[in-house]
Every structure is written in C-alpha cells, then in structure tokens.
C-alpha cells in the first residue's frame, strides 16, 4: 500500500488576521504548535470542511477535497463526505446520547452498526461505560469516546484540537501513548493542535510552528526545538536563552560575537561585523564543566563563569538556571543522571560552556 498523503494549502483573510499555510502530512503525527489565535484551529476546520478558505487546495491521496483558485472549477466537498475524523477540544459528545449512541451515531442505521460500535468501544477500553451518558464520564473517558466516535467511519485523517488540555498529567501520558498506537495500527494521518510543549515532544513526529496565521517552521520536533528557524518561532515555542550580541567579526570560518563583555565564537552564519544580532543557544547546548576534567572539541571555545540560580527536576530532565558574568540568565538542560558529582546548589559558582556549533544567530532584527 502506498503511503497516504494529505496536502493542505489554505488561504483565508479575516478582519483580525490572515491564514496562509501550506503543509504536507503523511502517515505521522503532525503537531500544529502556536499561541491561541495563530490559526491552528482554523486550519483543522478547513481540512474538515467546517470553514471554507478563500482559496487554496486540500487533497487527500490525490482526491481533491477542496480547490478554489483564481480560475478553474471550484471544488468543495461537504464535511460529511470528507472522511476526516475530528476530535473537538471540548470533545463535543452528544449529551442526549449514551456512549454507545455517540459511537454508533456516525454508522447510521446500517446492519451491524451496533456491533461495530461495540467493538470500537471495547477497543478503547470503554465497554463498562457503553450505557452511560457523557455527563457521567470523566475527562479521559470522554476523550476516548470522542476518539472512538471519530474513528467509527474509518477515516484516513484524524484531527485533534487540544485533545489533552482538560486532562491531568498522568492521564495525558497514557492517552498520548494510546494515540500513537492508533496512529500506527490504523495508518492514520494525524494532525494535532496543541500549545503544550510536552504534548508536542511526546506526540509529534513533526512539528509545524504557526504564528499569526503563517507557518514559521516545519521539521522534526527535536530539530525545531534545537534549531528554531527564527526568533519568532523560538518565541512561539517558549524557548529561553535568546540574547543580543554584537558581531565583532564574520568570516567563512566562523563568527565572533561580543555579548556584553563575553567573547563568543559561533559557526559561520550570514551576518556582518558591527551588527547587533539576536543569538540563541539551545538549553541542551549549555554544558556544565567539571573543574578537574579536560575540555575538548567544540566545548573549548565559549567557556565562562556562572552562578547557579535554581535547579528544577522534571521527569527525566534537570533544568539548571544560571547567571553568567555579564548578568544575563541562561538555562541548561541535561538528563537527570548528568552532573551527578557536581556541587549544584543555588549560589554555587560553576564553569560552563556554550557548545560552539549550537550557537545560532537569527537573521531578523527584532527587539526582545
């Protein structure tokens, strides 16, 4: 079987903002990431056929669901015929129907509809709840009903709008894993809207960063977080460690920066001497150094003194906030088992380095 592909190319002008987006999604989980009002939900609604873009094209495996351009025939397949499953933010379960009624709803009055619905309910681990009404269910159960219902007609595409926003963290994790299994077993094209960084990391194969209706960056999740393509992408992602530095020299071999008294060296990037540029170092590229061990390779260049501000333990990562000599703050992230032997207490002095290859300069001249 050839891989399924969804092409989305939508443009829609509204008084408040303009949606302008082109995206190709395969059998994967594509996370649409961005602040509210960036056009994430409208993108989903366009794909589902609930809103009509001004122009553009939406095609699933070559089947045109929507096409409207400056000339030529217009196509606009109604929502009911698109074969796109949609899980709404509030789940939008029908309050007057039971779990079974909800899951059965899309199957119509067909023979065997009941059996199919029951099979799905069992698959989603809801068999005890088939006769309950939505208001008798917990948030996680409602979400599973919503997914079961969206999958009832075997769609190729599953759209999820903030599917985890109403759930507590433990449950989130389980349901993310469930969603991944569904994606793989049913070979779904999944597009998931979120503004939660952890959802994006846990769920996404690829990440599309949206801002003001425009696509800022598309790439694998790790890549986007590590190397945001622009300052606004970085800001959308809630990334720290952006600072302004003056370019002291820029050659084919590398860039030298002056960050308020600290000399930094970065790989060659387009910029010119004398510019004040926004620079970024991923928290994973801020390394803490052991005073008694030799420093090698790309860690030699940007060494500096810092003072530990605070330490935060997450599930499998430790975040250390630091203040460097020029008074600015940096964030370092590393797996919890790193730096075990270092004396990391708030107030402790420490030597750090910014991995040379990781130091990036953003092109745009935006003020922080």
């Amino acid at each position, binding site marked *: 079987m050839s891989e399924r592909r969804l092409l989305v190319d939508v443009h829609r002008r509204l008084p408040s903002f303009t949606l302008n987006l082109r995206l190709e999604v395969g059998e994967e989980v594509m996370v649409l990431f961005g602040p509210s009002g960036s056009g994430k939900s409208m993108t989903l*609604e366009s794909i*589902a*056929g*609930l809103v009509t873009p001004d122009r553009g094209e939406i095609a699933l495996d070559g089947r045109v669901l929507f096409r409207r351009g400056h000339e030529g025939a217009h196509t606009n397949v*109604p*929502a*009911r*015929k*698109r074969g*796109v*499953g*949609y899980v*709404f933010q*509030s789940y*939008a379960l*029908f*309050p*007057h129907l039971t779990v079974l009624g909800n899951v059965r*709803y*899309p199957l*119509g009055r067909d023979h065997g509809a009941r059996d199919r619905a029951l099979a799905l309910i069992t698959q989603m681990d809801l068999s005890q709840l088939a006769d309950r009404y939505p*208001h008798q269910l917990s948030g996680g159960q409602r979400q599973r009903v919503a997914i079961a*219902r*969206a999958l*009832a*007609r075997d769609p190729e595409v599953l759209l999820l709008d903030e599917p985890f926003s109403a759930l507590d963290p433990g449950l989130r994790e389980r349901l993310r894993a469930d969603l991944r299994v569904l994606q793989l077993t049913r070979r779904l094209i999944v597009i998931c809207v979120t503004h939660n960084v952890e959802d994006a990391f846990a769920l996404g194969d690829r990440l599309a960063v949206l801002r003001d209706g425009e696509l800022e960056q598309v790439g694998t999740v790790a890549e986007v977080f590590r190397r945001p393509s622009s300052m606004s992408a970085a800001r959308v992602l809630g990334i720290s460690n952006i600072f302004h530095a003056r370019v002291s020299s820029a050659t084919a071999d590398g860039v030298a920066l002056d960050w308020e008294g600290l000399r930094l060296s970065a790989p060659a990037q387009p910029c010119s001497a004398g510019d004040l540029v926004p620079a970024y170092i991923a928290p994973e590229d801020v390394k803490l150094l052991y005073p008694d061990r030799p420093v090698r390779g790309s860690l030699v260049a940007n060494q500096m003194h810092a003072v530990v501000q605070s330490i935060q333990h997450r599930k499998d990562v430790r975040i250390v906030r630091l203040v460097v000599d020029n008074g600015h703050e940096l964030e370092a992230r590393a797996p919890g088992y790193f730096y075990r032997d270092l004396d990391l207490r708030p107030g402790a002095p420490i030597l750090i380095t910014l991995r040379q290859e990781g130091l990036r300069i953003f092109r745009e001249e935006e003020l922080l």
Partner: protein
Amino acid sequence: MEVTSVATVLVVMVGTAAGLLIARVRFPGIQLVEAILLLPLVLPPSVVGYYLLRFFGSGGPIDGLFGVNVVFTWVAAVFASAVVALPLMVQAARTAIRGVDPVLENAARTLGSSEAAVFFRITLPLARRGLIAGAVLSAARALGEFGATLMVAGNIPGRTQTLPLFLYDAVQNQQYGMANLIVALLTGFGLISFIIIGRLEPAHK
C-alpha cells in the same frame, strides 16, 4: 378546540423553522424578518385581524391567486390563532436553538450527517424542551385568541366560534353558568400550560 390543535401544529412547524433561521443563519435583513414575525405580539389583535382580512379576503392576494376566499370560515380562525401565537413559538424556538452548541452540529457534520440529519438528530432533540415549552405556550395563546379571530372568522356558532368568542356571547346573553364553565376551562388550561413549562425548565445536562 380543533382550531387550536391545527393552529398549534402549524405554529410549531413554522415557528421552529423561523427560529432556526433566526438563530443560525446570518443574512442582511434578518432583523426585519424577525421583527415582522414578532409584530403580532405588540399589535392590537384587531390590527392583525385587519391584515389577515385584507390578505385572505376578497380582492386580497390569496383570493386573486387561488380564487379561494376563506374569510368567515374555520380556516380563517386557524390562521388568526396561528399568526397571533407564532411570535411566542418563534421566540421559544430561537432561544432553544441558540442554546444548542454549534460545535455539536459541526461534530455531526464531520461524522457524516447531512444538514437535515444534523437538524433532526442533534439540534431538535437538544432543543426539545424549549420547543415543547414554546408549543404549549403557543397552544394556550391560540386557544385564547379573540380579536383577530373575530375580525376574519366572525363569530358563527358551530363553525367559527372559538371558546373566547363563545364566552363573549354567553356573557352578552347573561348565561353566567356557561360563562363560568368556559372561564374555568381556559384558566385551567393556562395554569396547566405554565406548570408544564415550569417542569420542562431544569436544563438537560
């Protein structure tokens, strides 16, 4: 009584459709349509009756188009009650339908429902309470209709005489026993209507 039943059925269908239109469709002039539908609520019944008379009477558009003259018949009484009760139904339907989350309707669309299926399987069941309340209220109003009925249907005993008209005659002829009976009947019906509506009130959650 038959007049009221037929009028109520008519009002519920037209009123729900109009309520749906007002609640869900946006087009220029919708406010004017809404105002016209609600107008009988504030106009004196005799004015409504006069409009109906000109509309249905000889020389009116219905007479001109179909050559039918329903004035002073049973049908005219139905129309008179219906037009007067319609605003109540329209308002109830509009409120009830606005109370249905459009997201649910969108969900049904993505699940393969046509617009008609969305209406009958989602919107209608969810707006049910409000619609029933509107229907009961309209029925009560239709039953009590006096002025407009008198204008277009007259007061022909056994043919176009409705209960309120009958009451009027009874009082005129000093048949107070009969009058008391009718008054009790109409009051009782009104009371029951409001009790039913009150029972429907607690929102379906």
